[in-house]
């Protein structure tokens, strides 16, 4: 479980996150939704430690991120997997080498065992026969899957996905959503997904956090979305604009 308390973040005179209080549950996908510029990506970067919040605490199963020293934080990050909006695949490495990279850096597996693990991860995301391809040679959906395979190569506890459906067609988008749900359930991890795709929200939003203008505007699940629309004009406007 991830607990966020009183999180604030600003850039010069712009207040991007304003007193964010949240908790993300394990074993089910947690979705953070909101319009572009609402602060979703900044929240995600604060959660993984790529940005330092001005004030507030982030606790991973009771461990405070802000209180960790440099080395402790580096070690802790091995429990985190992240799927970036632009995939962030290493363009000079093949698909196989991309997925193998965290294993090479942090595991004691030999080459044969690493290859087995790489193939296992690629099979989990339904990618076969593309081990030797470079990121520039595969489609957007395949890149997302390679990103997910790389993120789960090590035994992670937390998975963060920044706009996993951006730039994908509706069918591929659905495949990625299903994949994220399946991985979250299979591995029993805490998954946080940033999205502004309402189809994704309706399909897999076990817990939904709607951020508006840097504040948590609404928290619920896909089962309560309709109630949310009637209760919250900002959420209603966001939903209507999505279709």
């Amino acid at each position, binding site marked *: 479980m991830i607990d966020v308390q009183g999180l604030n973040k600003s850039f010069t005179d712009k207040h991007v996150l304003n007193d964010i209080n949240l908790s993300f549950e394990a074993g089910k996908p947690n979705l953070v939704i909101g319009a572009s510029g609402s602060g979703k990506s900044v929240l995600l970067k604060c959660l993984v*430690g*790529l940005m330092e919040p001005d004030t507030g605490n982030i606790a991973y199963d009771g461990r405070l991120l802000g209180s960790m020293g440099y080395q402790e934080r580096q070690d802790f990050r*091995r429990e*985190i997997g992240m799927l*970036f*909006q632009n995939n*962030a695949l290493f363009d000079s490495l093949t698909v196989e080498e991309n997925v193998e990279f*965290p294993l090479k850096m942090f595991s004691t597996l030999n080459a044969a065992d690493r290859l087995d693990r790489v193939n296992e991860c690629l099979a989990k995301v339904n990618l076969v026969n593309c081990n030797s391809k470079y990121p520039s040679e595969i489609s957007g959906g395949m890149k997302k899957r390679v990103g997910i395979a790389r993120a789960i190569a090590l035994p992670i506890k937390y998975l*963060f996905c920044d706009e996993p459906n951006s730039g994908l067609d509706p069918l591929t988008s659905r495949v990625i959503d299903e994949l994220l749900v399946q991985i979250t359930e299979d591995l029993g991890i805490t998954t946080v997904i940033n999205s502004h795709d309402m189809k994704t929200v309706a399909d897999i939003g076990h817990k939904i956090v709607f951020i508006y203008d840097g504040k948590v505007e609404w928290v619920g699940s896909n089962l309560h979305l309709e109630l949310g629309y009637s209760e919250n004009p900002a959420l209603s406007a966001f939903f209507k604009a999505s279709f």
Partner: protein
Amino acid sequence: MSFFTELGRFIIFMRFVLKRPQKWSVFWKITFREMHNIGIESLIVVMLIATFTGAVTTIQTANQLLTPSDLFPTQLIPKFVVGAVVSTSSILELAPTVTCLVLAGKIGANIASEIGNKKISEQIDAYEVMGINSASFVALPKIIAGLIMIPSLVIVANFLLLYGGALATKFTTALTYDDLIEGARMVFHVPYIKIMLIKAFIFAFLITSLSSFQGYYTVGGALEVGEAGTKAVTKICIAILFFDLVIAQIFLGL
């Protein structure tokens, strides 16, 4: 951004870069690849520039010293002086400084663009999220490779500058090969080689570290990546010229 702010950021960046690599086998693999990129890939251009510069320097020095003028009757200047001037300036200035200025353009822009591209495509963030010290991971192999290969290129350049000078004696009647070698031998001092190598090591560090720094802090898109390369080359050239002066004053200043 002020000079001191930039300097502060550079020092903080280097504090992270100069940390122990997390996996030595991966580090050496990348370092050997960088040694190839920095050293072998630059060898031809360094050889060409050194040979031609050596030849041109010899012809021009001979022209200036051996052409009759009102100021110096040519009879007063022995021909081997040309060899002495060419060899000394090759060792002290042309081999380390000119070679490194050329390498600043070639290697510096390349490193800044490569790291800048990794930065804007979130690859640097990906390293960080994995628990990898990204600054050290991307920059340290390049710095180590530069510290090994750039002084080696400077040594090669030094030999080829003299070789170019020797070639030039084939095309001029003003000076013979023996005059050139006699002059070079007459003024050769081992400390000059030390100064050349000190310059080469310092310039190698400046080229690789400043370009890595510039690339690492790139923000924006493709345009900014290009700008990072240009800015890196400009800063490296200024730094090389400044340290060239400082080293000359420390070791050769009267």
